């Protein structure tokens, strides 16, 4: 495997197939079909070829068969799968004809895989270094003692800081980004020529994702590895892949160079996919001017919430103040652990704040230390939609029963309730007979529509939406976002829309609040926040969003994969337990503009200009004020 020539990738639009390729592809697939039993095959007639030193993106929505292709390459599909192909070779090894011994040698040696969930992909009861060393000794024929040095070098190359210390740690002790880096090191341990990456950044925060994508580019260039990058996220593909294949229902409907496919798509499906992607520079489409400056409806005043987890204090939300205005969509963005979900739970009174008040500006709807009765009444005025529609619907209850549930709390008569349920189901675009069916009969997007129907059935004032579209495919997400906008206007609702996806927030919000480490760092109307972010964290978030336009790629040698350091720091501060900075700004350790006072004095949120609150000593773009 050593000393393999790095193929030139000058022609990104190289035709698929092995024919006439001088360097020889590391992966060649012709007419691959994977079927289970008698049903329609889940992969049909797929052609794909990957050469050393190129990244081939495989885009597709859930169920399009992209993961099956990857597992088929490894020969790891379940036994029930029927695999046929005119050609399926990895570095010249015919995967279909090979016996188990050849396959075992090929795996790790010629081809390796990186999975979505690095926590699951690493053995939880084994130190990282030992796991990698196991593969190193197996494939490189070195002794254990020498393997140690190889492991160190590998971890260093994939951007894991302090490789010696990290090698002795268990997976749960690493942050998500470092874990994925360790998983990449594990995959590279056998020095493979082909790397299959199945949604490798989907579970990561956007700033961490940027670092991992950079890592894949480095792996391509420095190790000369051919990479198949499977993703549903067009931004990820656009920023990383050299060539792209689009999968739909088990078939590749379009393939070619990344700019060719994403800028001049030839098929209707690709065009639809690209249209569905929310863009950062594409604001909410407003038919008319709307009363954005409505009066405060729901006031959050200095709310804090602390959890105790195995003797440690987790400051999930600290001193957050904001007002939700009548008839607006307030977006809340932040990374995992920033406290946005805890805030959501407090807004609907599933959690009580340790301190601070939540006030609904209506007589009799005051909460914050209120008793169960008043909290119950408030809950009717504030409803919630959760991230996973399947988990939030009782699978044994008929849809109508689930949707009617909020009405049971009020004194709606049975007949009126049934009528209202039919009405909201119609409103969310579900067929008439849905009420009598079970949740299992619906797709993910339809289930989310049911959840939305349940949230609006009792005429709430405020609907809190916690990542309502992140479990959905991008085309479905676009439909659900449209629906939410439509309902909001029709019912004159107020939304609190929580998401880690800035583009989605941009697509629906009037104002946006940014949270970091349990604190509010910036709050402004959507246009000015996205066009001129004042807080450095907001700027970093925006910069890290992968653009769906491949022309926006960063200039290549700009950044080496040293980002690991920032990731590990972030894992801590992002959890809202930033004990490292007891007094200063939680973001100071990552902030490019941090000065001495940032580490000692915490910046309080101040209104820099009307309608714009920023918690920063040195806000960006505000020097002249």
């Amino acid at each position, binding site marked *: 495997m050593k000393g393999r020539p790095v193929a030139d990738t000058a022609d990104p639009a190289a035709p698929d197939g092995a024919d006439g390729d001088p360097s020889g592809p590391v992966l060649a697939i012709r007419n691959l079909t994977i079927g289970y039993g008698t049903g329609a095959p889940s992969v049909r007639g797929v052609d794909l070829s990957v050469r050393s030193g190129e990244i081939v993106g495989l885009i597709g929505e859930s169920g399009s068969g992209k993961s099956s292709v990857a597992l088929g390459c490894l020969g790891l599909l379940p036994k029930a799968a029927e695999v046929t192909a005119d050609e399926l070779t990895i570095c010249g090894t015919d995967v279909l004809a090979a016996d188990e011994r050849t396959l075992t040698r*090929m795996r790790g040696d010629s081809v390796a895989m990186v999975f979505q969930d690095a926590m699951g992909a690493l*053995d939880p*009861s084994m130190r990282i270094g030992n796991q990698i060393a196991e*593969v190193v000794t197996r494939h490189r024929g070195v002794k254990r003692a020498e393997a140690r040095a190889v492991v160190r070098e590998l971890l260093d190359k994939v951007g894991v800081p302090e490789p010696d210390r990290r090698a002795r740690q268990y997976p749960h002790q690493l*942050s998500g980004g470092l874990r994925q880096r360790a998983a990449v090191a594990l*995959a590279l*341990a056998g020095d493979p020529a082909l790397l299959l990456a199945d949604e490798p950044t989907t579970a990561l925060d956007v700033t961490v994702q940027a670092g991992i994508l950079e890592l894949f580019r480095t792996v391509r260039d420095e190790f000369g590895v051919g990479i198949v990058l499977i993703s549903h996220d067009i931004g990820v593909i656009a920023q990383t892949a050299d060539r792209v294949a689009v999968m739909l229902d088990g078939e590749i409907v379009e393939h070619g160079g990344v700019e060719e496919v994403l800028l001049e798509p030839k098929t209707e499906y690709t065009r639809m996919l690209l249209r569905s992607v929310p863009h950062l520079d594409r604001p909410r489409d407003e038919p008319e001017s709307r009363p954005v400056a409505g009066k405060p409806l729901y006031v959050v005043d200095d709310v804090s919430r602390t959890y105790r987890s195995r003797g440690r204090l987790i400051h999930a939300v600290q001193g957050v103040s904001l007002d939700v205005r009548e008839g607006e969509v307030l977006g809340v963005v932040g990374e995992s652990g920033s406290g946005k979900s805890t805030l959501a739970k407090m807004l609907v009174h599933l959690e009580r704040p340790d301190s601070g008040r939540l006030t609904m500006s209506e007589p009799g709807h005051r909460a914050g230390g209120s008793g169960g009765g008043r909290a119950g009444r408030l809950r009717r005025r504030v409803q919630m939609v959760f991230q996973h529609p399947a988990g939030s619907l009782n699978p044994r209850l008929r849809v109508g029963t689930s949707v009617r549930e909020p009405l049971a709390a009020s004194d709606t008569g049975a007949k009126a309730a049934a009528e209202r349920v039919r009405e909201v189901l119609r409103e969310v675009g579900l067929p008439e007979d849905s009420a009598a069916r079970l949740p299992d009969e619906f797709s993910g997007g339809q289930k989310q529509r049911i959840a939305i129907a349940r949230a609006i059935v009792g005429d709430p004032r405020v609907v809190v939406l916690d990542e309502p579209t992140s479990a959905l495919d991008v085309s479905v997400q676009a439909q659900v976002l449209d629906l939410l906008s439509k309902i909001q206007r029709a019912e004159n609702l107020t939304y609190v829309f929580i998401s880690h996806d800035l583009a989605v927030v941009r697509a629906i919000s009037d104002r946006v609040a940014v949270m970091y480490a349990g604190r509010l760092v910036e709050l402004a109307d959507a246009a000015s926040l996205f066009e001129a972010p004042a807080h450095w964290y907001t700027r970093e978030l925006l910069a890290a969003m992968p653009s769906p336009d491949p022309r926006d790629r960063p200039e290549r040698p700009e950044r080496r994969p040293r980002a690991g350091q920032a990731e590990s720091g972030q894992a801590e501060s992002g959890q809202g337990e930033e*004990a*490292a900075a007891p007094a200063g700004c939680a973001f100071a350790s990552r902030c490019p503009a941090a000065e001495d006072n940032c580490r000692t004095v915490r910046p309080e949120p101040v209104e820099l200009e009307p309608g714009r609150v920023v918690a920063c000593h040195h806000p960006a773009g505000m020097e002249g004020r």
Partner: protein
Amino acid sequence: MSSATQVPSPKVRPPEERAARRFAPPPLVLFLGTRLLRGVLVMFLLSIIAFGLVHMLPGNSVDLLAGPYSTPEVRAQLTRDLGLDGPLIEQYTHWLGNVLRGDFGISVFNGQPVRTLIADRLPNTLELAIAATIVSIAWGVPFGAIAAMKRGRFFDRVARSATFLGLATPVFAFGVALVLFASMVMPSWPTLGWVPFTADPVRNVQALVLPALALGLPLGSTICRYMRASMLEVYEQDYMRTALATGSTRLQATVRHGLRNASGPVVTIAGLQLAGMVGQSILIENVFAIPGIGQLTVTSILQKDYAAAQACILLLGGVFVVMNLVVDLFYPLINPKVGGLR
């Protein structure tokens, strides 16, 4: 937020925080310390129950000792001699104090100290329990793991039928069946009767085989089932796929990454099972006529031998507590998250 309440995160700790944490007990010590304390509390509650239960039984040892035709004077004298005349609470504290000093009292029936009675029988029961443990683990763990590896194949089906049989058959019935079977196949094998190890090691081991099998095989069936289910779950995990994708064979992946991750639930259930085995041994000791703690417990309760019965109950409960502690000791070895090993 005051900095005093903040505890550093577990992942990367800058040096100054490490200093601040220096005097906190290590998580492992904390983990085991709380378990130990809990065990002591359980033993205390158990002592109350053991004492109360024995005294709540109908009839008492005075009636049994003095016989139906005794005079009230004799009975009163006996009651005083046996220390049964004060209020129950006083009797309890007196008993507990003696127990803490290692004095379990004197058996009213053969006049021997209870300690001696137990010391004579405990080795036999322990020997049986250890042998049965070895049998149950040797049968349960590998067969469960192999059944999971060969899921749905012939081996799996046989193992599952066998474990079902093992679970469904009562221990004593299984014991009797083993005795009958052995006496048919190998008439020369000593099926009943007990020879202490000190008297004749060879015949002791011979006598041990059948009861150990009778006790260990049914318990091993439970372990086998848990092992199989746990392994099947582990096979679904991504890290097993990762191992295969980096060129492990199925066997290598099972041995290196599967067994340890699968053993968590198995250790829990095995610990409870093995503790329960002491109770089961009451039946087996009767079937195979082994002079052990089980026999002593039964006879002392039947004879209203307060001191002996209380000591036996306390001992059986103590075995449970100790087994649970042993299981807790295993957890940090299996799962690095428990006890915060870092």
